[in-house]
């Protein structure tokens, strides 16, 4: 079990460019979560998929951010027209969802927008 895999580990983009972050959940986990971590805000919930279906995207900025889960083995978080304030560590987590939501986190992708 390799755990939750996130790629790339580091990404640097120029202002206005697009960034796509990838997450591979633990095999068999039905729930996938995306979070954003900054020093100022701490860890913020972005969005949640269950069995690939979007369940709650209440934490997603309404513009420029989108997340998909085209199959059970990966999810993507796409940020269009990146801005310096998007710089953060983006964490993906997955969970079995049986008996609770014990979440297993990936190592994160550190996004730096210049």
């Amino acid at each position: 079990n390799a755990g939750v895999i996130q790629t790339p580990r580091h990404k640097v983009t120029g202002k206005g460019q697009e960034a796509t972050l990838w997450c591979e959940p633990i095999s068999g986990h039905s729930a996938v979560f995306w979070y954003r971590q900054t020093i100022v805000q701490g860890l913020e919930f972005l969005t949640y998929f269950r069995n690939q279906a979007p369940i709650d995207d209440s934490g997603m900025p309404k513009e420029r951010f989108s997340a998909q889960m085209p199959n059970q083995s990966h999810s993507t978080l796409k940020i269009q027209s990146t801005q310096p304030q998007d710089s953060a560590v983006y964490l993906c987590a997955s969970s079995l969802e049986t008996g609770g939501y014990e979440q297993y986190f990936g190592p994160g992708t550190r996004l730096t927008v210049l």
Partner: protein
Amino acid sequence: GDQVEQSPSALSLHEGTGSALRCNFTTTMRAVQWFRKNSRGSLINLFYLASGTKENGRLKSAFDSKERYSTLHIRDAQLEDSGTYFCAADRTGGYKVVFGSGTRLLVSP
């Protein structure tokens, strides 16, 4: 909003000693998780509790939903226990975990 107050923010221990980390919650939480961030920055799952206590080796955790707190006890600390520990909790019926600010533990010889 929901808040998790974690203390202490930093802790220094000598090898072989022990101490406790604590998270207080401002609202009723359904479950709590404890993590340790490893040298590569990954969060390692230590405990998941919906109630009561759990023990794993030199670590023991307790969660009291009614009293709104959780603790992580470390005994016989070893050098490799150094790192940053986080608690995270989710509200009753919810799944959006809220993290504490972390405790940076340094174990020295």
